[in-house]
């Protein structure tokens, strides 16, 4: 019987082993370009361009003689040699994957709509203070319509049919999915077209998702739009329609780009140009109304000869390092632990080998800086962002303000209003410079739960109250009064569920109507400004905080502690003077002021204590000499 049981167990084990072997066998073998052979030379990418295949079919090669000319599919073309599914797990594409740790809080997608006085942070990542796009009624396609312009595709771009909206599910057949545009980052050709009138961003805005990557390349020009196309439209077939508004996307390839076998050479490199990163990661500071980039310096690392990807690295999994301290807890990138400032500039105390000086990074001496500063401050606190002044700098970012895209507003007042550097306590407990804006949005409040309202419902209610006369031509806030807020809230009252009430959040306050219908406001944590730590632009060491003296921060009027963060809202009449930064640093104001005040006497302290030290040392020396004299007398026998 025991033998019988043993056989059964062996049989089960064998079955498990065979099953595991079967599963292992099911894993796709690496493709040609998945595993590099180690050569540091850049591989030539002379390849056939492949079109999006029909379901279950192999992709077809694109020839210059095709009519209509088909857009190439990166998933098919690049995916022929690089496992596309692995690339999709990278940081730039995995926001929608709830299993991926959100990591340090970052810049959200900011939905800014002056028509409804709304500025709300959105993210698919679990960053505190953000909301999911679907909470304000943005479908994947709606989200791409607002923000896909500066997304490299993939992620939500390939989940366009994952929506409850049947019209949009049908439209995906026309627009296609927004595949990862490998060229957006890897193309080193100066012809890479991201933001011009026919470039990637415009194609995404038009809903030409299938054509976006093609349009971005230097070998094609795309015109037309999917906006008015019928459901019967098939991008593979010539389009005939009597509707003059229906002008489908048309691809015109540069015929000279097709070479042997009608293959095409792409200038692909893993050493991405900074211009590629800049398209989505640019900032422009607004000084005296000027926004010209010639008036501002770039990050000091770029002048030192580095590129973005020297520090922000990834392997084939595309899990790029973000470069913040402690990232290794959130990332499986093996370089995450060494990609922060300390990774190159300081030696890792836990390492057996010297690590400082990578990329010829200078090892800082930090003379005269007490080590306590390194426990309380991030490196960026002293080294990054603009030098803190009494007034914060208004800034625009590519992701928030569509910088670099044809037709984007160049107004300095356009929403959202971002300011920096705000020195606030970050998630790791250290004070770091942040960018900040004050969210403003309409929501329902049920108990302590705040849920943003669907933006279409808000438009319907607000449209009756916020008239065109209140709009700003510059894209700034509409000119609202408290009565307007009260009227919009009244209009929304019937739309919210029983037990809940409509509220408006702005300027750090929560506005609602009391039982008498009168507008009331209270300060609430839910209305706190949204902040995210910045790392760039890094200033030269000679411009770091503290380089002149302790007084750069420890003075009674130091912007670092006492700079005013302006409270921004459409309610001009109730906008407060501002919030001192100490409040965001969790520091007691009185102590901080007193400590700063004590630095006035710091030179006196130095002089007095050094003088005291000299006196004590003098007394010691005097009596030591006397003792020596006495001992000497004994030894020479002259003791009296």
């Amino acid at each position, binding site marked *: 019987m025991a033998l019988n049981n043993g056989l059964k167990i062996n049989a089960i084990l064998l079955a498990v082993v065979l099953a595991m072997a079967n599963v292992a066998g099911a894993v796709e073998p690496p493709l040609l370009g998945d595993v590099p052979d180690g050569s540091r030379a850049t591989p030539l990418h002379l390849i056939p361009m492949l079109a999006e295949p029909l379901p279950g079919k192999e992709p077809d090669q694109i020839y210059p003689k095709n009519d209509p000319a088909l857009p190439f599919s990166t998933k098919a073309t690049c995916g022929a040699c690089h496992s596309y599914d692995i690339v999709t797990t990278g940081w730039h594409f995995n926001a929608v994957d709830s299993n991926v740790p959100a990591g340090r809080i970052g810049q959200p997608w900011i939905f800014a709509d002056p028509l409804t006085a709304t500025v709300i942070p959105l993210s698919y990542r679990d960053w505190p203070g953000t909301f999911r796009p679907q909470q304000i009624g943005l479908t994947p396609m709606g989200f791409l319509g607002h923000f896909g312009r500066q997304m490299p595709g993939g992620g939500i771009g390939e989940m366009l049919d994952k929506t409850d909206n049947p019209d949009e599910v049908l439209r995906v057949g026309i627009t296609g999915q927004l595949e990862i545009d490998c060229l957006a980052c890897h193309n080193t050709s100066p012809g890479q077209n991201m933001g011009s009138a026919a470039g990637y961003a415009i194609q995404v805005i038009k809903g030409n998702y299938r054509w976006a990557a093609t349009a971005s390349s230097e070998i094609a020009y795309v015109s037309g739009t999917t906006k008015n196309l019928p459901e019967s439209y098939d991008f593979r077939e010539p389009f005939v329609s009597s509707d003059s508004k229906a002008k489908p996307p048309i691809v015109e390839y540069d015929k000279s780009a097709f070479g042997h076998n009608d293959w095409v050479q792409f200038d692909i490199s893993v050493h991405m140009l900074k211009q590629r990163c800049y398209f989505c990661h640019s900032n422009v500071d607004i000084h005296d109304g000027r926004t010209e980039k010639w008036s501002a310096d770039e990050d000091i690392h770029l002048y030192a000869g580095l590129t973005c990807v020297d520090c922000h690295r990834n392997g084939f999994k595309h899990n790029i390092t973000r470069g913040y301290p402690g990232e290794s807890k959130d990332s499986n990138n093996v370089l995450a632990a060494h990609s922060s400032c300390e990774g190159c500039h300081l030696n890792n105390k836990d390492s057996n080998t010297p690590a400082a000086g990578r990329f010829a990074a200078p090892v*800082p*001496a*930090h*003379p*005269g*800086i*007490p*080590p*306590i500063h*390194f*426990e*309380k401050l991030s490196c960026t606190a002293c080294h990054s962002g603009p030098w803190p002044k009494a007034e914060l700098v208004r800034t625009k970012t590519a992701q928030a303000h569509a910088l670099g895209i044809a037709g984007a507003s160049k107004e300095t007042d356009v929403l959202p209003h971002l300011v920096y550097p705000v020195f606030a306590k970050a998630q790791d407990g250290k004070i770091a410079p942040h960018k900040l804006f004050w969210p403003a949005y309409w929501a329902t409040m049920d108990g302590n739960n705040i849920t943003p309202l669907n933006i279409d419902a808000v438009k319907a209610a607000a449209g009756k109250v916020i008239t065109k006369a209140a709009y700003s031509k510059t894209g700034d806030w509409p000119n609202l009064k408290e009565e307007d807020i009260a009227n919009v809230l009244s209009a929304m009252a019937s739309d919210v569920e029983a037990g809940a009430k409509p509220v408006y959040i702005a300027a750090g306050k929560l506005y609602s109507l009391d039982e008498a219908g009168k507008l009331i406001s209270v300060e609430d944590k839910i209305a706190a400004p949204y902040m995210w730590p910045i790392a760039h632009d890094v200033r030269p060491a000679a411009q770091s905080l503290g380089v002149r003296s302790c007084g750069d921060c420890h003075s009674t009027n130091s912007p670092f502690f006492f700079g005013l963060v302006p409270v921004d809202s459409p309610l001009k009449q109730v906008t407060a003077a501002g919030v001192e930064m100490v409040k965001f640093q969790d520091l007691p104001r009185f*102590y901080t002021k*007193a*400590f700063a005040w*004590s630095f006035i006497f*710091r030179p006196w*302290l*130095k002089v*007095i*204590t*050094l*003088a*005291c*030290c000299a*006196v*004590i*040392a003098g*007394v*010691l020396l*005097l*009596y030591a000499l*006397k*003792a020596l004299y006495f001992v000497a007398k*004994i030894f020479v026998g002259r*003791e009296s």
Partner: protein
Amino acid sequence: MFRETAITGFIATIVVILLHFAVSKPKFDNVFGKDRGLRLLDPLRFLVFLMTLIFVEQKWNFAGALRKLILLVALFCLIVLAVTGFVPSVIYDEAIGSWWLFIHAIMAGIFAVCMAALAVLWADRNRFDKNYLPWLNTILRRQPKSTVTPERYELEIKICFWGIFVLMVPVILSAIVSMFKIFGTHGQEVLLQIHRYCTFFLTILAIIYLYFAALNEMEKTAGRS
């Protein structure tokens, strides 16, 4: 490391003092009277006796009173400095900061001034005498002319006195030099360790100094009675 050293050092000092106190058997009867009840309260009486030492004696002239006042201010500063310096690092195991640092920095300046004054005013009184080490005189075959018998704990007190002042120099320098742009991060850390350990030993010496000074005063009080 410092935390463990400090805790061990302070406990060891207190234990040694208690042992010494038990072994030396101070003459309580001569100070507090033989017919006192509740002898269990003698340690408490000793503490009260210690408190009485802070008062300036009526017979002293201005210079003497000034010396005593400076000593008392220095003592007060030392207590505050020890509390603000050691509580964060030894009890809470964190770097000194916030109000601790603020008070520490203010008292440090006053303490330095007091100690400089004490060094000038008291150095001569704390010169070592030839009679402290009779065995050394024997070895050197010397016959000291002075016949003054030293007080019982005079040598220990003077050793502590000079030890304190020797330590004062690195204590002050390690704090003040770190405020200049001379030493980098590693140097700053070394300076911090020098400051910590020197203040630790200085505090230990100060405790021992006070203990022996109190014992000496008891002896004198007992002698007078």
